[in-house]
């Protein structure tokens, strides 16, 4: 029996129930995140959780940290301000696939590029949950959505490849089913200086399933298990064989200088160049 940790981290005053549908993967992912935070023994007072807008972005309201539920797509720039305002804080960003890679796509690549010290949990359910099941930038070609009644003709992003190409220090992917693996990635990400992103593949049994007949929450969880394949095994497989697969593992684990460190050095240089005004 796993120790009940998540309940120790729920806000004492928050009115429950939460907003998520039965079978939704969002809560499962959050449970792993909380376990990771707990095992790292980070003070609750030192954590700020920042999110955008979407089902997944509702998460911070439930947890006993300082938190900022921002505007759609903008979690990263809000979080950038928090981090630069007080670099001592551990800033964790929660964002959905639509939030992070459609409306917030520009912020995403720039946060990766800057290597700003934020820890991003990108919850990917391949659809817009909150607004009723429209297609997102990660929806597979051919899948159905409220706005793709003839099947989606867009091609999906590979978020991890995007993050690696844009320069993120730490990039990993796992699923809501693989609770221990993802907890490990969360821990590594939080410990890692610089920008870290964990793509958490999850299930939306209400809307994705409504349009694509993928079954109940449990069926979709099982599918996450069956479709997952490690990055090492995937290396020897053909694109054709990988089509239905979810490649899990660590995609980047670098040592680029974090933004706050670079800025601290800049401040020291600037302070040295400061001269007082001459008298007249």
């Amino acid at each position, binding site marked *: 029996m796993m120790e009940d940790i998540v309940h120790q981290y729920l806000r004492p005053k928050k009115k429950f129930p939460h907003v998520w549908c039965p079978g939704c993967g969002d809560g499962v992912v959050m449970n792993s995140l909380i376990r990771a935070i707990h095992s790292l023994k980070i003070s609750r007072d030192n954590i700020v959780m920042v999110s955008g807008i979407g089902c997944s972005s509702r998460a911070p309201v439930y947890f006993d940290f300082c938190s900022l539920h921002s505007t759609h797509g903008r979690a990263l720039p809000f979080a950038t*301000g928090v981090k630069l305002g007080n670099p001592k804080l551990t800033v964790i960003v929660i964002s959905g696939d639509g939030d992070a890679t459609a409306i917030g796509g*520009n912020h995403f690549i*720039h946060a990766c590029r800057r290597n700003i010290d934020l820890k991003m949990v990108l919850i990917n359910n391949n659809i817009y949950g909150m607004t009723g099941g429209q297609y997102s930038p990660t929806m597979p070609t051919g899948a159905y959505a409220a706005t793709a009644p003839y099947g989606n003709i867009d091609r999906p992003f590979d978020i991890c490849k995007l993050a690696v190409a844009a320069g993120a220090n730490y990039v990993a992917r796992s699923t809501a089913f693989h609770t221990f693996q993802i907890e490990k990635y969360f821990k590594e990400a939080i410990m890692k200086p610089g920008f870290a992103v964990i793509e958490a593949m999850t299930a939306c049994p209400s809307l994705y399933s409504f349009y694509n007949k993928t079954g109940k929450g449990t069926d979709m969880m099982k599918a996450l298990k069956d479709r997952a394949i490690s990055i090492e095994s995937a290396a020897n497989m053909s694109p054709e064989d990988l089509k239905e697969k979810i490649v899990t593992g660590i995609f980047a684990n670098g040592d680029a200088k974090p933004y706050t460190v670079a800025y601290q050095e800049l401040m020291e240089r600037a302070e040295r160049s400061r001269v007082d005004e*001459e008298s007249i």
Partner: protein
Amino acid sequence: MLFYKLYKDKDGRKVGFVQGNEACAEAALAAGVRFFAGYPITPSSEIAQVLAEKLPMYGGRFIQMEDEIAAMAAIIGASMTGVKTLTATSGPGFSLKQENIGYACMNEVPCLIVNVQRAGPSTGLPTQVSQGDVMQTRWGTHGDHPIVVYSPCSVEETAELTITAINTSEKYRTPVILLMDETVAHMREKITLPHESEMKLFNRTRATVEPSDFRSFDTRFGDVPPFEPYGNEKGYRFHITGLNHDENGFPTSRQDEVVPYMDRIHRKIYNNLDDIIKVKEWNTDDADFLLIAFGTTVRTCLGAMEKGRKKGLKIGVLQLITVWPFADKVVARLAKKIENIFVVELNMGQIINEVSRAAAGHGKIKGINKYDGVFITPDEILTHLK
């Protein structure tokens, strides 16, 4: 690289011959701003450039974001850690910031947004003057919300109002907009920055309750809730959201929580108009003609007043230093006693509607409008008065 130099005068005050944009940046620094996020746009870029150089000298941080939406988000995030923050932009960028300005209103986040107006709509006349954003500063973001907007007519006043705006934002937990125009932003005049003690800097009120009793938007101490920063080290852990929220910052759609909240955020501004509204009057006692203006056109009005009076035209001038909330009472008083009122604006007629509303049928109100990107002259104003 800086294109101006400040000196110390005999009383130790910083003085210089600087642009409006430079004055804004220097005054912000003097008033304790320690974070700037922005995106370059003419005619506001000098504010960013000065702060990129100076903030890190004084323990502050500067960041050039990927766009203005991000810049607005970043200053809100930084302000939530207790830092005084600033962003500066112009028309197109100001349009992009609107959603997040609403977020700052909704969460009562102190911050200063400088909008150096250029002619629009769209890309418009990027390097030329306009006052076409005055209604956008009031209603640019969606939904009902209060906002405070100041508009300077000189470089010296830009410095003064930057400090006032930061103080207002801290005092009332509200975003404040400094509405400049291209002319004041780029003209050079002398400024004298006040000593720190002369600025009467205001810092947001902090909370004193037990952590278990803390509320993000506590109304028990008045209409302006005490503020606690993220990382407060006092055990205050709280949530904020752009959704309508209760006193704890938790989302709500209960009428008995939404309505009092909306009423309170308006009340905290509208119950303090005497403190917030600033105007200047010249020769309004004996005037037959009243010129009403804001921003740099005030200077032209003063020129027209001087010239006109020499010819026997009794002209008075009213400067709306605080553009929003609108100076209803002052306009109503003057409209009752001065028959001919001219509202001078570098746009097709925006604030004139507010003047008409406040005058409530008194006086003959006409607009003097210019929207060709070229500054208005005293003679142009005088041609309308005959």
